């Protein structure tokens, strides 16, 4: 993830947010979280999930960086099956970007593999392994200027940044 150091923003002459912007952003986040985790949890995730990313996308999985759809493929190729349960999410349009980048923050549970039932038979009841982990995932979604858009669409967005940690 070799990215240049922070530089000054292009300009901060962006128009202030209006109600409709927030509404569209909120709805996009809703739609995105649904699509994304459904794709992650599906049997065909190796085909579906990389489509959310582009070559320039940066990923961080529990402190481990990778890059682009290929980096994601490497990551999920060796990942057990998952079942995500989104418990909260929030979304903010990032000031100074137009159409705005979206900051999407998701908090929830994720079960890996076979869950508690996959533990060995004599596992003590107090064992946490196998049980759902709490996760926190921060995305930046940005417009893909090269994508073909449908009527009514402002733009097609992709994941430019994806930063995940287990948090419980």
């Amino acid at each position, binding site marked *: *993830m070799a*990215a240049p150091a*922070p*530089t*000054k*923003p*292009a300009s901060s002459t962006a128009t202030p*947010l*209006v109600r*409709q912007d*927030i*509404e569209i952003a909120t*709805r996009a*986040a809703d*739609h*995105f979280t649904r*699509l994304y985790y459904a*794709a992650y949890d599906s*049997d065909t995730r*190796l*085909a*579906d999930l990389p*489509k*959310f990313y582009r070559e320039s996308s940066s990923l*961080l999985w*529990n*402190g*481990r*960086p990778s890059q682009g759809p290929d980096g994601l493929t490497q990551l999920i190729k060796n*990942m057990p*099956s998952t079942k995500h349960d989104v418990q*909260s*999410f*929030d*979304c903010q*349009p*990032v000031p*100074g970007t137009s*159409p705005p*980048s979206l900051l999407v923050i998701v*908090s929830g*549970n994720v079960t890996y593999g076979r869950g508690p039932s996959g*533990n*060995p038979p004599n596992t003590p009841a*107090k064992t946490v*392994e*196998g*049980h*759902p*982990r*709490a996760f*926190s995932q921060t995305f930046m979604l940005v417009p893909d200027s090269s994508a073909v858009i*449908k009527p*009514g*669409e*402002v733009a097609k967005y992709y994941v430019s940044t994806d930063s995940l*940690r*287990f*948090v*419980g």
Partner: protein
Amino acid sequence: MFSTSTPASGSRTIASRALRRAGLVDSDTQMRDGDNDRRNAQRSRRRIRGTESAKEQATGSFHRSLAVRMSASARGTASDPLAIRGAARPTIAGRLRRKDAESGFASNRDGAVDAWRQMVNARYNPETRFLDLSSMIDDEIVKKHSLSPPGRGGNVRTAAVIFKLAGQLQPEVQTLSLANNNLHGMHLLYLDRYLPKLRNLSLEGNDLQTWRDLDHVGAKKDKMKCLRELVLIGTPIRDMEYKNGRGDRYRSELARRFPALEVLDSETITQIGFTTETDIGQQQSVVPKPSATTFPYEMGPSFITGVDGNLVSAFLFRFFEFFDTQRNGLLGVYDDQANFSYCCNTSIPVRARIENLHNTLPNQRRLNWEKWLENSGGGSRNLNRQQVNVDKSVKLLHIGPPSIIAAQTALPETKHDVLGSMQKFVVDAFPVPHGQGHALLVTLHGEFMEVRKQALRSFDRSFILLPAPEGSRAKLAGWDVTILSDQLTIRGYSNPNVWKIGPMLVQAEAKSNPAQKPAAFVTSSLPLDQQATLNNLPDETQRNLVLQTCARTRLNVNFALDCLHGNAWDLERAITNFEQVKDKLPKDAYL
């Protein structure tokens, strides 16, 4: 900010054309029929709601009992509405009709199901995948068998049977018209169960009065999640919203309820698309299913790159000092257009519950979410919750420093122990594209004490930062960076050992594994500023060597680094060298 290049209205999808061809959207005749139906519906509704005038008493009680039956049967059969196979489980209306009917066909339940099936099959066009169930009361098959369609004597159960039959059609139904059936919300309760992948739906000219009626179609967000087009023209709810000048809100509320909605009442909805949508699940080539039984990587240390780690830690120290003691002191660090919002994930973390942290830590039981969920600054902006409607989501996004500080001041008092044990926090920071340049995304996970209750909560916080230009408000207030975006998620307390660096288990291990290795010395054992210094090293091998040196000598990161550097990054040479000079080292050379 958002602008769409295509007109918001007038663009109609294929489905819309299909509906129109079928006379469901624009056809005059159907509209007239619909109007009549509506008038009838309104008349009968007035009867239901009206006082029991002598003249209407009989009809009134008839309708009331029907309503009671409907809700009772829905409650009783929530797990499977068709547990008793009875499409036309005899209703009062049905019985009344049958008195006149020559044939007793409809009293035979299976016969009724067969008749409904006949109707459903006859009205399905497999080529366009369009099922036209408009005005069922006028259907020849319905008349022949004296069936009572839902909304015309048939109840939620009848509707469920019809939806179930529709769900069995091949190829799968994509477009469904239920126009002009005098349906109430309740009739639609099982639509999602049997036709969850429906893409286009017309409910035109039905008796949908309130938002609660529409709750039955898609209140829960996982309902009707493929629905792209919806027609509610000629329903009382739509008429009412437009009459009261709330057309925009009507549209945004429906857009919120149906995440995939693209066209509402033949007008496109402005939205953001995702490149993958059309491809998801449509993959032709076969890909391997997930089968791994271990994680691809271990839990890694804090990841900070593309930025001076000291800048990040200095920012965090100062930020939380103000946040904990004097929130209005943060006025200067927020950009004029900055955003702040927070949300609560109130669910109890599964692993924390298993570890019984709730009971074993002091005071945890005193905590409640009250002051977080709602307060004078607004409250939690958890967009996953149905209660956070469009109005709230706008109000709870705080824009600009004064509004942000007001919202934060309304939050309960906190104490973040960022200067104490760094094992309680993990921070990731790296550049992200912003305009033509870059900004810095900083994500911090950790815990704080809710001071009034003296109890712990966990949190996640994401900042987007820009360098503070010389002479800027932030710079003058002593900040090197300015905040563009700030999002806080508050969670139930979880054990911070989740960030312990090293392997993670997917399942519990079999018991025969007693060999316990001594606890590793890991990055998170270090104070935050030293973690940052360490993470500034680009080379992972070097970072590991520094950690090992720290572990064996208890030297702090800077001294360990110097020592390794002076010994050509040879660990054993560095240790030997340390042994020779350790008596001469100052106290602050050590951790």
